[in-house]
């Protein structure tokens, strides 16, 4: 689910970027905010950080002792993407293994669909391994699949999410793209 969130953050502007002209200062605050935003990548609570949409306000700057940098409290709106348990989503298969497949869904690369969670499908080995069902529905690389999220895990070190998904449910499985 994509979320629109308003966040308060602090932006630190190094002393050498401070400029008497107000416009330049505002610009460097925005640039710095966007850099911080991109390197932050994701948080456990809000999910992946996609884009800053608006800068709502810039507060009074406070000079930091020793360095002379100035810290500005800012409030901004942004879009984030978070996987929720029970949510139904669509993703693209990028790896087929014996015990299941990996899917990609937006910024999330590691979405695992285990063979245990798609009981109708059988693994067919070969140069391009696939999962086939009795009804000849095929799961292979680059196929779009609609799935339900059964669990998510936040990896603090990589600042990433992993998810386990399932095809057990009505109207889930590979879909044809028109």
């Amino acid at each position: 689910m994509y979320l629109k969130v308003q966040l308060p953050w602090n932006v630190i502007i190094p002393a050498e970027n401070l400029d008497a002209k107000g416009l330049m200062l505002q610009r460097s605050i925005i640039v710095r905010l966007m850099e911080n935003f991109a390197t932050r990548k994701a948080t456990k609570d809000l999910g992946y950080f996609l884009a800053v949409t608006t800068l709502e306000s810039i507060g009074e700057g406070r000079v930091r002792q020793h360095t002379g940098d100035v810290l500005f409290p800012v409030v901004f709106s942004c879009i984030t993407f978070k996987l929720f348990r029970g949510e139904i989503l669509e993703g693209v298969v990028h790896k087929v293994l014996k015990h299941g497949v990996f899917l990609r869904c937006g910024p999330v690369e590691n979405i695992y669909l285990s063979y245990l969670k798609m009981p109708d499908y059988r693994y067919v080995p070969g140069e391009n391994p696939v999962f086939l069902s009795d009804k000849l529905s095929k799961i292979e690389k680059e196929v779009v699949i609609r799935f339900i999220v059964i669990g998510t895990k936040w990896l603090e070190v990589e600042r990433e999410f992993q998810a386990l998904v399932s095809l057990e449910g009505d109207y889930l499985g590979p879909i044809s793209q028109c």
Partner: protein
Amino acid sequence: MSGEEEENAAELKIGDVALILEHKYEQLQQMSEDPLNQVSQVFEKSLQYVKRFSRYKNPDAVRQVREILSRYQLAEFELCVLGNLCPETVEEAIAMVPSIKTKGRAHDDEAIEKMLNDLSLIKKFE
């Protein structure tokens, strides 16, 4: 949605996100010659994803979808899932969002059917 941390969060549909990200990308394009170097990987992957999965391409259609769905007293979460997945039949819609059929809510099959019809009309006339 239940989590407390999302108190100040509003859900968005893929279409909304596609509009915003594409606009942002154009802005970046104007600012530098090699915009892909400027944006984070998260942004790039998301842009690709929403471009591929957005059911409605034109901005007016995206707005109309939100307007139509908002007439049906849906929770934001339900609204987004329906808008993102565009189910074609009542049965499929209920499978995607079981909560629209729960007790005490005014959605009978007829109302859901009408809602899906309205949505498919937008797609037709896009």
